[in-house]
């Protein structure tokens, strides 16, 4: 069940949202997510986000691309129809296969990784974004906390206020909202 009610601390300063997130962590409040106009480094550690396994996925896609390229070239140039080039001997795998293998590896890695990233982040064309503020992609930094599972709202509000939030809002989305966790 996705949470639908949030408390959102609005910040103007990346340093302050970082401090607030750290304090939140110390007092045992779980942060749902932060929304920032650019990647604020350090926040992900405070929130306890683990390193993504996308690089492993990328490696697997690369291996797939490489294998497909070898199979394609082996089948077309050895199995199905061998080209006679000045009577030179034909072997199942030729050194001339290297460039195409390389290109296919790169192509599959790139497309596979990007597609996986989009699917994992629930990013699709035409998804309506659920925003806390129109300026969160420009110059505001949002710290969002699930209001249903965290009952001590007063304490949360206090931490936000003490750490320089310019505004504290409660926000409710319908249950099909696009915020990921």
């Amino acid at each position, binding site marked *: 069940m996705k949470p639908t009610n949030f408390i959102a601390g609005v910040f*103007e*300063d*990346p*340093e*302050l949202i970082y401090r607030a997130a750290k304090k939140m962590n110390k007092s045992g409040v779980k942060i749902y997510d*932060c*929304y*920032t*106009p*650019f*990647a*604020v480094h350090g*926040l*992900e550690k405070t*929130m306890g*986000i683990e*390193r*993504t396994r*996308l*690089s492993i996925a*990328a490696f697997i896609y690369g291996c797939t691309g490489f294998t497909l390229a070898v199979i394609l*070239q082996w089948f*077309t*140039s050895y199995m*199905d*129809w061998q*080209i006679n080039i000045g009577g030179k001997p034909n072997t199942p795998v*030729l050194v*001339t296969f290297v*460039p*195409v293998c390389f*290109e*296919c590896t*790169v192509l599959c*890695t*790139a*497309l596979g*990784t*990007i597609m996986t*990233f*989009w699917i*994992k*982040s*629930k*990013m*699709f*064309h*035409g*998804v*309506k*974004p*659920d*925003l806390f503020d*129109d*300026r969160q*992609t*420009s*110059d505001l930094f949002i710290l969002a906390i699930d209001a249903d599972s965290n009952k001590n709202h007063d304490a949360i509000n206090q931490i936000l206020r003490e750490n*320089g939030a310019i505004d504290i809002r409660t926000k409710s989305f319908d249950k099909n909202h696009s915020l*990921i966790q």
Partner: protein
Amino acid sequence: MYESPIRERLITGDKSYGQISADICRPIENPPTKAWWAGFSVSFIFLCLLVLSLTITVMEGIGTWGVNKTVGWAWDITNFVFWVGIGHAGTLISAILLLFRQKWRMSINRSAEAMTIFAVMCAAIFPLFHMGRIWNGFWNLPLPNALGSIWVNFNSPLLWDVFAISTYFTVSLFFWYMGLIPDIATVRDRAKTKTTKWFYNLLSMGWNGSIRTWTRYEVVCLILAGISTPLVLSVHTIVSMDFATSIVPGWHTTIFPPYFVAGAIFSGFGMVLTLLVIARKVMNYEDYITIHHLDAMCKVVMLTGTIVGTAYITEFFIAWYSGVEYEQYAFINRATGPYWWAYWTMMSCNLLAPQIFWFKKIRQNPTIIFIMSIIVNIGMWFERFVIIVTSLHRDYLPSSWIYYRPTWVEVAIFLGTMGLFFTCYFVFCKLMPSISIAETKAIMPYDQLPIAKARMEQEKLAHSH
């Protein structure tokens, strides 16, 4: 964030985050200026010329071109290599400089990447139309044997090129789009009218700036940079193998791959400079693309120009050292034969002219940089012309020696691709943020931000009391 006390600041003018968004979005949010309309109209006329000349080529055939049985490759392949080379700077800036953590790339990578994509589009036109029967273009693909032909030849560098160029185009396009997504979201959230909101919403894929997404996003960009780096090297290596694997004197050289890659970066930076020197003025981006960005790019131009020049001299040396008289003749003919003027244009534009960038005063003078960037473009175009035409026009059989001249159709196709390139660039400048908004904010020196300054002042006061 650690700030180097020596380095020049990457963004000048004490901007706040909101101001960066507003500055970069200004050309998108306001009606196009007169300068934009003028540039767009001229480019569009040239684009029409492209359509006309290609129509003539397809209707009449390759006979409308100046190529003949001795010089079978000339203008078209020259332009193909020229445009592919132009594209390389974009990938160098976005991928290689990302891996080297060069922060100055942030404000120029977007337009350089756009340039890559448009340049590869222009490049693809030439081999496709040189096939004569463009409607059979799909014969390049490894398709089953339904047409009575055999499979494509995987031993041929020309087929490697098909794979290399199409992979390069696809990966560059996706890399560019990935970089654009957060910025499209910024434009979307600033949009006032319903249609613009709808348009940017469709392209932004629901981006909301979540830290979870950001961390994944940064890893994806790093992976893309990691694979684009060998990709960009492979693309021009393979392009050079179109020539190097043949036995034509003047082409049959092992130095070609590194020499072509250096040349590609050289010419690409030339084109980036041509565009950015103008764009930063017209679009008021002087705070973002500072004189120090131009300075850094000039250094790259000088370095790669010198590498290319060294390669020219090395070729000459190896031709002599190999003792192969045909090879020796090819090079002497290049410098002193009927195309001597092309050879010396190339030498002076690529090797000699960039040496003026040893002087800091010149690296920081936009007018001279602009003129130099045009010279580099001309020089690199002639490099390809020299390699291709002078090697072919005098073959082993003196009775078939010939002087190649382009026809007006060939010239029109080349000018037309210029039109296509610049039309695309103008449309891009109007629709998309041509500087990366999110990345620019991330490299903004923190202690120069108005809010940070105010906060630190307050904290200092609180301490002293």
